[in-house]
């Protein structure tokens, strides 16, 4: 049992968490058991989808659990951009505000467009006041982790899978020829036997990259290559290498520790077109932003200023009240307003139950987003039933709902200090009102 936990604070938070909503029995106990785990890494970048599967909790409830717990100060939420080729966590942010529209992987030397769909994961790490982890201080993480742990528990995502289903980290481990820390001012020599291809690697602490081709006739005598790390980059005294034995002498001329990770990639490996990794299921940014609890609890989480983040596919559902103008005339503004608010509450409940989130209301219309189109269709049909019940309870047919659904690409933006969406997909889902006449399609 871990002893470095502020048990009093944990008790207080868990008590509040129990009251946050109704939970399936033992859900909080399962979370508490995780927090007491002896393995610090188990509390770093927790994947709620894995938690759900391992602890037999529904995914939706697990996501809600971590969101409420984060709001109460039990966890910190992290947004990570994953390199689709190597699985490196190219960027990690505490807030959606800091995410930009593109990112760069130091190891692969490739830029990628940020997309909420595939390679943007959201995870949760225990908050320092509850339990301190070495991972809370990235500036000194290298003082507490082995170089293997630095790369495979911190630098690379543990969720990456190759096309054959192998863990990408296992493949990287197998390819690694050098994996070592280098203290400031230190020089280390590594003796390797190179085959044709490319020497490829980085220092993950300085974000420095080096790639040298290996080709030509094999060297008759052992080669020697001097590589200096200075001012955040590698400097080598040759631009290419020959196959055969070599002594690589690395010198760290920076004032801080370096973490060397070098692979020898064969010609066969390099000839293959990069296909990209699969990832074990994780909480994608898209799924998070279509969760009502996220929108309710984290209203200040939105895209920064003029930035926008691409979404390859999102489903939008629009509702509107039929004959609302006549309704206002008939029952008066005050009663109509109360009625509209009540119908919003009914809609919110149904949309939330089907893994959707209300983006905004526009007059008496609602715009909702879903990660999954199937959920949107199920929600729409239940909305009709819910409104029918609503009318029966009131003994009138005042609320008559119209619903449209469409899916497609869009961008996430900030409008009126809220996370919103922009694009033709939204136009299609909503637009027709001003031109449509009964019985005729214009």
């Amino acid at each position: 049992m871990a002893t470095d936990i502020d048990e009093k604070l944990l008790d207080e938070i868990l008590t509040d968490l129990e009251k946050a909503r109704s939970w399936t029995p033992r859900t909080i106990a399962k979370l508490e058991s995780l927090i007491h785990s002896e393995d610090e890494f188990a509390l770093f970048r927790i994947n709620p989808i894995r938690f759900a599967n391992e602890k037999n909790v529904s995914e939706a409830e697990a996501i809600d659990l971590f969101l409420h717990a984060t709001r109460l100060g039990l966890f910190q939420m992290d947004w990570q951009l994953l390199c689709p080729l190597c699985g490196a966590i190219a960027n990690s942010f505490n807030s959606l505000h800091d995410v930009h529209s593109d990112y760069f992987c130091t190891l692969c030397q490739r830029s990628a467009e940020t997309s909420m769909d595939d390679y943007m994961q959201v995870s949760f790490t225990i908050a320092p006041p509850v339990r301190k982890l070495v991972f809370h201080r990235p500036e000194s993480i290298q003082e507490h982790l082995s170089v293997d742990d630095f790369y495979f528990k911190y630098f690379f995502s543990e969720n990456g899978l190759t096309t054959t289903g192998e863990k990408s980290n296992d493949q990287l481990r197998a390819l690694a020829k050098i994996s070592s820390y280098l203290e400031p001012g230190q020089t280390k020599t590594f003796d390797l036997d190179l085959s044709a291809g490319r020497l490829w690697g980085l220092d993950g602490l300085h974000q420095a990259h080096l790639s040298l081709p290996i080709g030509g006739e094999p060297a008759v005598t052992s080669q020697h290559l001097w590589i200096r790390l200075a001012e955040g980059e590698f400097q080598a005294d040759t631009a290419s290498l020959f196959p055969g034995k070599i002594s690589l002498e690395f010198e760290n001329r920076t004032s801080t520790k370096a973490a060397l990770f070098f692979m020898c990639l064969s010609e066969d490996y390099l000839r293959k077109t990069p296909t990209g990794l699969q990832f074990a299921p994780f909480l994608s940014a898209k799924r998070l932003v279509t969760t009502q609890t996220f929108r309710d609890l984290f209203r200040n989480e939105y895209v920064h200023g003029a930035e926008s983040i691409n979404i390859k596919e999102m489903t939008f559902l629009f509702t509107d009240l039929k004959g609302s103008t006549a309704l206002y005339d008939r029952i008066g503004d005050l009663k109509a307003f109360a009625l509209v608010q009540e119908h919003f509450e009914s809609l919110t409940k149904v949309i939330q139950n089907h893994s959707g989130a209300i983006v905004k209301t526009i007059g008496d219309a609602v715009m909702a987003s879903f990660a999954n189109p199937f959920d949107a269709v199920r929600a729409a049909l239940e909305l009709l039933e819910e409104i029918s019940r609503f009318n029966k309870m009131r003994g009138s047919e005042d609320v008559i709902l119209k619903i449209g659904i469409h899916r497609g690409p869009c961008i996430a933006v900030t409008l009126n200090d809220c996370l919103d969406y922009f694009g033709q997909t939204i136009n299609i889902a909503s637009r027709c009102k001003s031109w449509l006449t009964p019985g005729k399609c214009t």
Partner: protein
Amino acid sequence: MQELADSREVYVSEEIYQAPGVQEFLGKFEIIPGKAHLKGIHTEMQVYKILSSDRESVDGRAGVQTPA
């Protein structure tokens, strides 16, 4: 899409109708396919009107041309 819908109707686009699981789920509902021109969209769109179980079909009223 939403404005195509008349009372107690759901309109879905082709993209939604073709999404995994949707057609199977809608098997018990009355579906009326049709074409519609949406404002600002140059191409005619295939849309599907889903009628809720507690109302009768109102073909044509919602402005969708249904196949002959």
